């Protein structure tokens, strides 16, 4: 089974104030400078909606989002276009892109940047037709998830937690005791 539209979310470990103009300005700068490989189109501001996609860069192939869904803020990479390669390639690509954006955010905001969790990240497949959120889907992709996480973290000391609400998108959180470094996975 071919997976597509893999999202990755890197969680913030510390409270992060997104109310001011700072991050909006950074996102507009990123659009102006087209800092990623994907086409960046515009910035969408939903800070008035609780527990949602607070601030987004809308892209053609992918969106970059400061996302507060489920009350856990983080940087979300939302892949919209299909990608060639294996399932492992696609899981890795999502984390690579999110980590790349996280590093850039840290670099740009300096000591005002959020602290990212170094022990946890989340994959979501944003497509119910390809990946209905069922135990069968989790079973079908477990080996790819394990291979991807192992390749990203460089070890296999992690756990996978499948979030099994069938109405939500297929989603798995990877947790590890050993800290990982964005610079190494980006």
């Amino acid at each position: 089974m071919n997976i597509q539209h893999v999202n990755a979310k890197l969680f913030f470990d510390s409270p992060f104030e997104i109310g001011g103009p700072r991050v909006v300005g950074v996102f507009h700068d990123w659009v102006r400078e087209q800092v990623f490989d994907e086409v960046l189109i515009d910035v969408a501001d939903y800070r008035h909606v609780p527990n949602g996609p607070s601030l987004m860069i809308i892209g053609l192939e992918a969106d970059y989002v400061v996302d507060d869904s489920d009350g856990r803020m983080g940087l979300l990479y939302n892949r919209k276009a299909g990608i060639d390669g294996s399932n492992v390639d696609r899981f890795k690509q999502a984390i690579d892109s999110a980590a790349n954006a996280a590093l850039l955010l840290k670099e740009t905001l300096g000591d005002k940047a959020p602290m990212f969790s170094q022990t946890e990240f989340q994959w979501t497949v944003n497509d119910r037709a390809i990946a209905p959120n069922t135990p069968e889907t989790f079973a079908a992709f477990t080996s790819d998830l394990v291979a991807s996480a192992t390749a990203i973290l460089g070890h296999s000391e992690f756990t996978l937690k499948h979030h099994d609400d069938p109405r939500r998108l297929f989603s798995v959180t990877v947790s590890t005791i050993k800290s990982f470094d964005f610079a190494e996975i980006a």
Partner: protein
Amino acid sequence: MKTSNSLWRDRLSGKLPEPLGEEIDNFESEIELRKQGKIEDKIFAETRLRRGAYGQRYDNGTRYDGEQTREIPYPPGKNTKGPGTVWDAPGMVRIKIPYGGLNPEQLEVLAELAEEYSDDIVHVTTRQDVQLHFVHIDDTPALMRRLAAVNITTREACGNSVRNVTGCPYAGVCKDQAFDVTPYAHALTQFLLGHPDVQNFGRKFKPTFSGCGQHACGLTAMHDAGYLAVTREVDGKTERGFKFYVGGGLGAVPHQAKVFDEFLPVEEMLPMIQAVARVFAKHGEKKNRNRARLKFLIKTWGMEKFKEEVLAERKKLTPDPRWTEYLDSVDTFEEKPSRPGGALPAMNGNERYNRWAKGNLREQRQDGYVTATVALPLGDLTANQTRALGDIVGKYTTGTIRATVEQNFVIRWVSKSDAAALFAELDAAGLAEPGAGTIVDIVSCPGTDTCKLGISSSRGLAAELRKRLIEKGAQLDQAIEDLHVKVSGCFNSCGQHHVSDIGFYGVNRIVQGYQVPHFQVVLGGEWENNGGSYGLPIVAIASKRIPDALDRISEFSLRERLANERFSAFMGRVGKAKARAVLDDLTKDAPSHDDDASFYSDWGDPREYSTGDIGKGECAGEVVTAYEFAMTSAERMVFDAQVSLDDGESQKAGEDGYAAMLKAAKALVQIEYDDVSEDSDEVVEEFKERFYDTKKFFDPYAGGKFANYLFTGHENAGRRFDVEAARHLLEESHLFIEAVHACYNRMRTAGLNHGASK
């Protein structure tokens, strides 16, 4: 874009209600044909519009990034999806929700679509539609199939067609209704959808239903066709019918609908709208889209002739069984509660619940039940919230929820004894905002966020105002809390600023050589009585000063209003000149760009507000001074004309409104030809030759529309003005002056403003 689109086609094949399934198949084929270049882009544009796939800001492939307008680096070599519209540029999908009626299953699908194809946000519009933004055109057939599977269509949600049939969200449960309009709104929706007689309009056509005259829920006064429920007694029997309005509309020049029939029997509802549609299709303007709404046909003909034509057309119609068949099923629309009625819990120590209950619960006509309004900030909710809302509605009711024209949801048939539990569940989902229908519950169109026509950031402003008002919270006086505030990003009034107590619409101005986002302050409109009267603009104020303006107006009304006096009545009594005086200093003493660059950007958008790299040449400076002086006079003249209109001097108002246009035209002409005289013939001739014939005056979207206001005013110089005619001319005068500003800004941007003499 999605790799799963074909999976949905296969999965839902043969399972969709017809004709929706076949229509979506056809649309998918049309997309393919357009990709192959076998359909003209202009035709494809109207095709997709009639399927609800709309354009969005920046879809021409360029975007101003705060420094300059740059191309968005879309992959090269693809077709367009309309003239000047890049294929890969994301667009908006408008989803028709007739009379706002939804059920939990449909909410679930909307949530899924928002996640998978859009930006995780479900947006409720001022016409009870739902919009999803940033959708790729290639994904639209799959999205439409998934909607069709739960009996929702996007067909004719946009384009020159019959738009969503709106209706009172309290229909059936309202204490003040004549009867439940739901079955009739449903019948009209079904009858007109895809009807051959509604396929050849020059512009859109918007119907609405209201159960009573006094509230705003249906807004019959501002629709092309408005049905207001009424009854009459004949031989001891109660007959149902509608007070039938036609020719209303907001837009750039708002028109109040006129009564076509004081009592249109329900049996005549469908044949009469068919006759109206046929007359509109046959005689409505087709070439000039700016005058193609029904309101212009009625204005040109007068109601008497329009009615004669419609009645003559009605006589010619071939009888259609559908005209009355639906009447047999009217009773089936009666909703039932899922839980026994009860009593509201006593107000307790939970201050948040108390505030929410006070503003968001409304007694139903049925004992023991209330409706609960879910107030949505800027009409937005997330996919997760949409799912949670479906669960809550399913748990406490039989699935009865409706979207409202104030961009909220109303849950119907909530047992009073469930109110506190419902609040707790809504609160857990972040959906228990208090203050529904109050000053905090600000309505806004998309504005510069996503709309191609947006001039200023209506959503940015609305978010800022909302934040500040929430901070004031309980300190707000009840009279202030009761005000309605509505914001549009431009003069087109999608935010319905004309029918609010305090409205704003986006304009721009040059300040110290820079473009600065502004909002016109519109005062005195009436939300009640189905949008019973329209406000008028009094002054343009810089966007960053609008929160101060709102404070000033609120405090002014608090200080000077009479007990229980509504804001619109207050404005009528004190006059706009006095209201303007309290705002006057906000139009002066702008900070320099060096001192406060944020003044030169819009709310929520740190980019410098400009469409080009504007220079500050000394030569231009001299011209600017003369120009600005003349334009200030023109604006003052049109304002004085409004005051005359308020004072009942409609003739003077009309004449001064025309004179203001002339003044603005001369200001523009003088940039090129210093020696132009005061003679109106010469001013108009020079304006036409230099700015209209050369198309310099042409707006990128409206073309030469606004110039025609001047030409018509000139041709009709010396005419008589009644109140309505003067009011229309003043609206046109405002728009013409705005267009002069816009033209001047474009010229400065293009460096064309060097003085010249004849």
